[in-house]
């Protein structure tokens, strides 16, 4: 490369700073027993490994901060990493928590739930948070919707990234469909369906005939064995309420 070429390159911009918002899964920590956290976390991941693989995750330390509990922060981070997640930051921690996070090159994220430090249990606050997210989320872009008209067969895996997934045929047992947004299946859903795969708790699953092996929204899942017989084989919608999965006939 000649010197003048180099100069030209220096003139034309190779970078640009932009801003964009992402919905990230939050790992709430309610206690500091590393062994128990590890056990519960790996049990959760085991049930939906694809959901967690390489997923950036933010740790919410506000319940610990509220009770001035310390935590082996490096331990939790390495637990997450071992399970395939990419911990990127914390929120809601106290000064000591934040210092530990900084030492591990983690981001300290603005804490929208700071006020909750004084409010007792953090769980009931979740729906409000989901609602807030819904309000702030950009409208689902029409072109991000993925339409599939052929049956999705055992062993196949479809991921509608950044949007909704519509399947007009059936989804076989042994198949897996994933959407960052909603999932609609106008045939029989026999395989696994994971909506809100990037953590959007407002995502829903709609299907004409529920016989799924597993359904999940934003990481909250239910396996076939635990599904109520009364809704099996029916047209249903699945959504999150207080972070628990609700399955209702349509």
């Amino acid at each position, binding site marked *: 490369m000649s010197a003048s070429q180099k100069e030209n390159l220096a003139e034309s911009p190779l970078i640009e700073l932009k801003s964009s918002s992402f919905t990230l899964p939050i790992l709430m920590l309610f206690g500091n027993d590393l062994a128990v956290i590890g056990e519960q976390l790996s049990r959760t991941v085991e049930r939906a490994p694809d959901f967690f693989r390489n997923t950036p995750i933010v740790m919410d330390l506000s319940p610990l901060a509220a009770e001035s509990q310390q935590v082996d922060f490096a331990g939790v981070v390495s637990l997450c990493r071992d399970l395939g997640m990419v911990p990127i930051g914390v929120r809601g921690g106290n000064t000591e928590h934040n210092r530990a996070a900084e030492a591990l090159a983690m981001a300290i994220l603005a804490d929208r739930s700071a006020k909750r430090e004084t409010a007792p249990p953090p769980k009931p606050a979740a729906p409000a948070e989901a609602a807030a997210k819904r309000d702030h989320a950009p409208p689902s872009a029409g072109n991000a919707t993925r339409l599939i008209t*052929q049956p999705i067969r055992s062993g196949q895996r479809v991921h509608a990234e950044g949007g909704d997934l519509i399947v007009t045929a059936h989804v*076989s047992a042994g198949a897996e469909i994933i959407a960052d947004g909603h999932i609609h299946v106008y045939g029989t859903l026999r395989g696994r369906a994971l909506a809100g795969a990037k953590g959007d708790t407002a995502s829903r699953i709609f299907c004409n005939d529920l016989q799924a092996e597993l359904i999940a929204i934003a990481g909250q899942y239910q396996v076939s064995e635990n599904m109520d017989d009364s809704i099996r084989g029916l047209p249903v919608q699945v959504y999150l309420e207080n972070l628990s999965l609700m399955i209702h006939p349509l």
Partner: protein
Amino acid sequence: MARTIVVTSGKGGVGKTTTSAAIAMGLARKGHRTVVIDFDVGLRNLDLVMGCERRVVYDLVNVIQGEANIRQALIRDKRCEELYVLPASQTRDKEALSKEGIGAILEQLSGDFEYIVCDSPAGIEKGATLAMYYADDAFVVTNPEVSSVRDSDRMLGILASKSRRAENNEEPIKEYLLLNRYSPKRVKVGEMLSVEDVQEILSMHLLGVIPESRSVLSSSNAGVPIILDEDSNAGQAYADVVARYLGEEVPHRFINDKKGLLGRLFGG
């Protein structure tokens, strides 16, 4: 231009070789020049079912590796002069198969034959995926049981994504369901999935239902494709399948248990 049919299933022992032999013979007997190729390298048995095992000189792998030309390897059937068999190798391993090699053989056969029937090995590995790669039509052989249906479903997914037609964005492979070893009696008592159950799970076109029949084993032991046993239910069912595939309207039989007294005494 030949039409290439793959007989596939995922699961082993469901009747792919039986079906390949029967439909190849059926097509040839209707006057269509047909070759049936055994892709089950290492476990060849199409030649046994076709009754030509003692005339095998060269095989598929020899041709792919240039040790013989295709004419030397083809075995002409003694009962039907429109029918040829290209046997598999029993001594080589399936790594000897290559996509390019198979492509070149099919290309050569395509000029001389109307139908090329590929008897696929079980599994979803190399032999099976190569057998289906160049297919125009797929006969998916399924037994009326959950594990077999599940494997067929898996195979359909692979057919839809890993074929030449899929890679070139051409019209997809036509898929036909062949439900084999069907026993209306066992369906009735709930030991087997019904035709409706299987169709509901796979949602694909039903080409035919082949009943469970003892004649199948005895005729393959004798090296006679079952379709030549015109007295057997299974032979008749395969004849229907061939006719349907060629566009004739033939009602489905052997789905319900309504044999007459004579049938019950002598059937099977």
